[in-house]
């Protein structure tokens, strides 16, 4: 039996946990729900880790067929695939998933039992679908995972079902990502038509072999799909709103794994993308622009979760930048590092803010060092990695590799390098702002520690941010690439960037004049108000159209259906109304009255006088004779 058979087992436990909790008819108590959820979340890691190890040791290219479909001429072969890319990302996702779901046991402990059940069911479904996507060997399984993630994201953002804001955020996220999904579906179907197969290994060469226009279109559609899921400019607006979901949801879906799936998609299909230089340039530009934009917007946030959301947007921008520069391996290394430190940041911030009366305002971080030291120190570790403190954190190594790729990519690359460097400086600024706020002492704060389910994942991830640092270069080499190295001076500039950011953060936190200015910068905080533009360009016209078509504006409801009916009614009326008096009937009536009148005339004949009769007889006989004579004519 091939060892790749084990691939099938990776998403199974999480899927099983979903089926039990989400659709199973049995009742479970709180402990049972937590046990099932934890088992579903940790078993994939247990299966995936040996697979990853196998991948390191042996030959690592394997396909595990699931089954074949025949659709007319095409054979659709569903399969899972293990290669360095899917092994690396798979291991990351399983570990982060297990940590976040484990953390949820304490974090969500106060919810109602039905809500708890729904929450864990959806989290496990999400984990299963993410793993399906990562391990997919064909576009069908890939898209299945991709879409199911979006569905879970919708339900989890709208977890607080009584909050109108959460539901609106969920809908917004779902609609915007669905737009991107439509692009992705189009690209995958076009590739399918080119290749006559859905195997990713067949799609790439078929895509490369096709003509320029079609290949360019496919690459552009793929990029659009990735940008939507990864909340890149201009699709980014759904991600900050998505923070309405519970914090562990934000940690798992909306930062570490699902949102970064766009980068994974592009890395997966990188050989195809690389054949279209224009799309690659656009990818790099979008990435760099989003990195800078996200970092700038994050600097102005007053809410820790929104700050982290903009941070995710920015960091995934870095990944797209690397992909656009032809370094997808570096992007994936950053994916892994980012997944660790960003989930750590969310989890520790969630722990701190949950203690602080549940608000996620940045002020809730005050006194965190005293009040919640474990979580605070873990947050510091995450922030250090996010900012890219040199030599000790994983974040520095992966970000440095991205900056290096930009520097080495020619004149346009140097422009991108400048943009990315300024983003890196701002990253330091926003990353350390909550950290510094945490240092501000608060009177009467008591030191508390979370339970083991809170602390264990946090500590594991905190250790991970440092442990991953020396592994960044091996990871890239594992993916069969080399880490680029720029001149030493350039590298040093990159190393100084986070400290400049730290100084900025210091100024913003402790200098009242500057912090007041930050608090007033509404335009930047709302993400340059692209939301407003969408409202005007898409939402309002759509709502107006719907209102008009449904007759809420004094119009005719359902005009296309109703107008023909009204026309037919008018036509029938126009024919029936004149006929309502029944002309044929009137003709008969007229005949009757004419008969009566004729009778009135005719009765004069019957006068009763003998001379009249004698005259009539005489005339009659004369006429007969005349007729008889007439008939003899020839």
């Amino acid at each position: 039996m091939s060892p790749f058979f084990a691939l099938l087992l990776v998403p199974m436990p999480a899927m099983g946990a979903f089926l039990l909790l989400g659709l199973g008819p049995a009742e479970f108590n709180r402990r049972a729900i937590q046990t099932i959820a934890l088992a579903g979340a940790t078993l994939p890691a247990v299966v995936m880790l040996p697979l990853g190890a196998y991948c390191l040791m042996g030959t690592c290219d394997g396909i595990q067929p699931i089954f074949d479909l025949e659709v007319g001429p095409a054979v659709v072969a569903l399969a899972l695939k293990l290669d360095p890319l899917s092994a690396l990302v798979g291991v990351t996702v399983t570990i982060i998933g297990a940590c976040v779901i484990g953390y949820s046991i304490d974090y969500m402990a106060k919810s109602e039992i039905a809500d708890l059940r729904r929450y864990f069911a959806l989290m496990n479904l999400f984990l299963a679908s993410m793993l399906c996507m990562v391990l997919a060997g064909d576009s069908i399984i890939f898209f299945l995972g991709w879409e199911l993630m979006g569905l879970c994201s919708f339900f989890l953002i709208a977890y607080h079902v009584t909050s109108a804001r959460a539901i609106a955020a969920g809908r917004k996220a779902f609609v915007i990502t669905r737009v991107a999904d439509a692009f992705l579906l189009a690209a995958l179907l076009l590739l399918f038509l080119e290749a006559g197969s859905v195997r990713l290994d067949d799609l790439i060469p078929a895509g490369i072999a096709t003509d320029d226009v079609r290949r360019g279109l496919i690459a552009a559609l793929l990029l659009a799909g990735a940008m939507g899921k990864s909340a890149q400019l201009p699709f980014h607006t759904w991600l900050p709103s998505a923070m309405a979901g519970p914090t562990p949801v934000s940690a798992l879906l909306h930062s570490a794994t699902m949102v970064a799936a766009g980068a994974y998609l592009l890395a997966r299909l990188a050989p195809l993308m690389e054949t279209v230089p224009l799309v690659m340039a656009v990818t790099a530009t979008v990435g760099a622009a989003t990195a800078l934009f996200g970092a700038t917007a994050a600097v102005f946030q007053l809410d820790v979760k929104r700050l982290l959301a903009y941070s995710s947007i920015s960091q995934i921008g870095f990944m797209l930048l690397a992909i656009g520069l032809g370094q997808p391996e570096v992007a994936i290394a950053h994916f892994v590092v980012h997944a660790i430190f960003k989930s750590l940041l969310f989890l520790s911030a969630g722990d701190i803010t949950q203690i602080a009366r549940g608000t996620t305002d940045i002020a809730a971080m005050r006194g965190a060092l005293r009040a919640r030291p474990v979580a605070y120190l873990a947050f510091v570790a995450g922030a250090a990695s996010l900012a890219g403190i040199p030599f000790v954190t994983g974040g520095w190594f992966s970000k440095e590799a991205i900056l290096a790729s930009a520097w080495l990519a020619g004149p346009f690359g140097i422009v991108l390098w400048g943009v990315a460097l300024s983003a890196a400086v701002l990253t330091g600024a926003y990353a350390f702002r909550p950290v510094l706020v945490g240092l501000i002492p608060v009177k009467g704060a008591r030191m508390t520690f979370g339970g083991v389910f809170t602390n264990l994942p946090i500590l594991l991830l905190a250790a991970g941010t440092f442990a991953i640092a020396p592994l960044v270069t091996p990871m890239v080499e594992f993916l069969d690439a080399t880490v680029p190295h720029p001149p030493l001076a350039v590298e040093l500039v990159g190393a100084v960037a986070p400290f400049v950011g730290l100084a900025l953060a210091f100024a913003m936190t402790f200098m009242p004049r500057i912090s007041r200015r930050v608090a007033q910068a509404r335009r930047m905080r709302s993400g340059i108000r692209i939301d407003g533009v969408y409202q005007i360009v898409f939402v309002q016209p759509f709502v107006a159209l719907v209102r008009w078509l449904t007759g809420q504006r004094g119009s005719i409801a359902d005009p296309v259906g109703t107008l023909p009916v009204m026309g037919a009614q008018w036509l029938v009326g126009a024919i029936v109304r004149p006929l309502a008096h029944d002309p044929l009937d009137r003709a008969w009536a007229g005949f009757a009255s004419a008969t009566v009148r004729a009778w009135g005339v005719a009765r004069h004949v019957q006068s009763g006088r003998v001379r009249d009769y004698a005259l009539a007889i005489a005339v009659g006989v004369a006429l007969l004779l005349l007729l008889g004579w007439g008939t003899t004519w020839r």
Partner: protein
Amino acid sequence: MALTALIVLPLFGGIAALLVARLGRNAERWFSIAVLAVALIALIVAWTGGPPPDAPGAQWLALVRYQYAPALGLQFLLAMDGLSGALVAVSIVLGIISVVISWNIRKQSGLFHACILWTVAASNGVFLAMDLLFFAFFWELMLVPSFLLISIWGHGDREAVALKFLVFNAVAGLGLLAAVFYMAATAPEITFDAFVFAEMGIPPLAQVWLLLGFSMAFLTKLPAPPFHAWLPDAHTMAPTAGSILLAGLLLKTGAYGLFRFPGMLFPDGFHVLAPYGLALGAFGTIYGAVLACGQTDAKRLVAYTSIAHMSIVLMGLSGGVHFAMMGAGVEMIAHAFSASALFLLIGALYDRVGTRDLRQLGGLQQTAPRFAAAFAVFFSAALAMPGTANFLGEALVITGMFQVNWFLAAIALVSLVVSVVYATGLLKRIIFGVPSKACVTQDLTWSELAPVIVLATGTLLFGMLPQLLLVVLEPAVDAALAPLVRP
């Protein structure tokens, strides 16, 4: 023989149900279930009986031919291929489900169950008859029980709505009837045998007119805008069982007709009219979806989504390419499951709270989690989530559209996006939010849950293991497309 039973059994079973209803409480219900169960067995017998020796094509699984009135050229000619077999199976299952979920109907219960059985009988007749006079007969017969279902057990302004339904479909049926008689009259010797019509080589111009006549009936039943005005009203005012049969069966007869006959009888006419079918489908899918977004009545909303989805089917059928036709076939079955299930759930909700007004509903998640989970499953189907049969259907249609015209593919993709808007809107109003005044306290009972599980299993099974469905449809699609390939 078994094929005949598929029609005769429910037809006379319906008459018997009128009498059985007097025997005792619920007798007619168990009787109807028994009749339909026997019909299901008959279907299995017919399906597995091996290919008939005298079939005019390899795709036919079973065929029955009696000379009914030889002087008129009238035969009782039934033939079943994969598509009609699948649709007959769906009709029987939906018939059973309709009986199960109507357990608390007390008013004229015998007639009610007779109507259900007659609907199944007539739609089976439509799916199987290949003698076009019988086809037209069943086509019209189908209207009667639905008319009764709406006008006797419906809600609101039910008589007017039932009349609207009847007038629309009866008038549209005239086109079919006229075309059938024209063909019979021009045939070398009088007959209504579709296989003979297929062979006789109708002149191209006549094909266009005849196909227009057929389409008049089929598009109204489908329904495609602008012939759809009867559907939202009929769906909304019908009792739950009526809505299920309308959405699951009646709409499918329109799609079935467009699947079966244009390719078989009017290949030249098809080439002339297909672009209009594509355009109508593309318009309808967006139009239905956009209108669904603005509805405040839950059933009306689902009715408009039916228009959107059946328009996708129309696109698939008009594409004339393998993938699209396949997708249309899959989408027909998938929509029969998902739309019926949504009507079932909304009906169950209405039974509890007495309103379908979305503005007054809400909070199902908290008061009835099972109910909410069921909604969530079919919500995923409505927006074509991968893993549901609906996705398979729509993805295949879109694939086919990429072969026909990229612009149409783009429109179908846009409708996928709009489907998220109305589906999330429905969820937001029904399962999310604070439990309202009209809050539901009782979760789904087992008699409601069992049909939901059956329908969900169908949706997910064919979504996850599509081969089960594709194998069945493939020969039918190939046969339908074969005459369309221009030499």
